[in-house]
């Protein structure tokens, strides 16, 4: 590796922006892996569109993090690109849910559904943030995530209530992903500070609404909500699954080996 890993001064505001940005970037990157591999051309475009929406959201949030991060000791400042390309696995702050390998089309749809059912009401609530820039990012993102939720809901219903095979695959995807959903609602001291200032909302307040949305769609899809209450966590503090390293290796290889490369 030619280009060195950056250091990040993670004030609560920076940490918050990086967490939300990393969710969007990593999930967006996972969707980009589907490009050319979806079951039909129509769904290929749909997944790529969603991926592009998420990467756009990530850019806005990285730009915000760069704006709010104190300058480094040598006077350099981080940028969208250095956050994305020059942080190692342990510096990424995304949900474990977002980094899980794609699996089949059913699992891709289920993961996107579980995330969208959370992030859409989350951004809607964040439109009332006392921070004007965060409120603006939320307003733009919510229009996109509302569509992601609609798109994935329709597919969850059709695949769940489809053939015995598609039903079993969707149920298996749900069981596989379920223990990764709890992390979405976690909050910590850094976020509590921002909550107290009215800058961000408490993610755990979204939980009941999320559960109702998920239950409603799963009922129509004839799928069964898993009973297990045990939840994985670690992504928010940089403890990731082994999958993220491979993802970053692919995503970062070019900018790390050819610093400053442009189109």
């Amino acid at each position: 590796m030619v280009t060195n890993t950056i250091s990040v001064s993670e004030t609560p505001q920076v940490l918050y922006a990086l967490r939300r940005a990393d969710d969007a970037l990593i999930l967006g990157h996972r969707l980009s892996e589907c490009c050319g591999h979806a079951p039909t051309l129509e769904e290929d475009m749909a997944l790529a569109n969603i991926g592009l929406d998420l990467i756009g959201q990530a850019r806005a949030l990285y730009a915000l993090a760069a704006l709010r991060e104190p300058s480094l000791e040598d006077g350099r400042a981080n940028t969208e690109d250095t956050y994305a390309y020059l942080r190692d696995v342990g510096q990424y702050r995304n949900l474990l849910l977002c980094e899980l390998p794609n699996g089949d089309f059913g699992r891709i749809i289920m993961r996107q559904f579980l995330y969208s059912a959370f992030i859409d009401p989350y951004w809607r609530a964040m439109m009332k943030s006392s921070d004007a820039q965060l409120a603006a990012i939320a307003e733009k993102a919510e229009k996109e995530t509302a569509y992601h939720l609609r798109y994935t809901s329709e597919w969850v219903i059709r695949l769940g209530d489809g053939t015995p095979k598609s039903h079993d695959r969707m149920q298996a995807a749900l069981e596989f992903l379920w223990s990764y959903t709890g992390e979405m609602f976690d909050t910590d001291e850094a976020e509590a500070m921002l909550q107290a200032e009215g800058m961000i909302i408490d993610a755990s307040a979204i939980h009941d609404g999320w559960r109702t949305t998920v239950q409603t769609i799963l009922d129509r899809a004839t799928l069964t909500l898993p009973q297990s209450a045990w939840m994985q966590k670690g992504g928010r503090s940089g403890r990731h699954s082994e999958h993220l390293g491979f993802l970053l290796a692919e995503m970062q290889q070019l900018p790390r080996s050819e610093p400053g490369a442009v189109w």
Partner: protein
Amino acid sequence: MNKTLKATPPVQLWEVFIRSRSGLAHKHVGSLHAEDAELALQAARNLFTRRGEGLSIWVVPSHLIVASDPSEKGMLFEPALSKAYRHPTFYNVPEEVGHM
């Protein structure tokens, strides 16, 4: 057909019409495959409005479109070619009217 196959009927072809601005008519832009009307509408949005082309989308099952037979084009369309008087080009428009 499999009885459990409720929500996923077989895929069919749909024609897509987009209205790009208020006041204009919906215009045919292409076709796509989808399992039902809702998914066809979603696919139309995903495929044909990525660059801000649309304000409104119509999707129509292709098999519901009744089309003229190309082999009858002589009978259907040629008689109109010799009737130039049907074009409104024989009126003198007073200059004060300007562009109509």
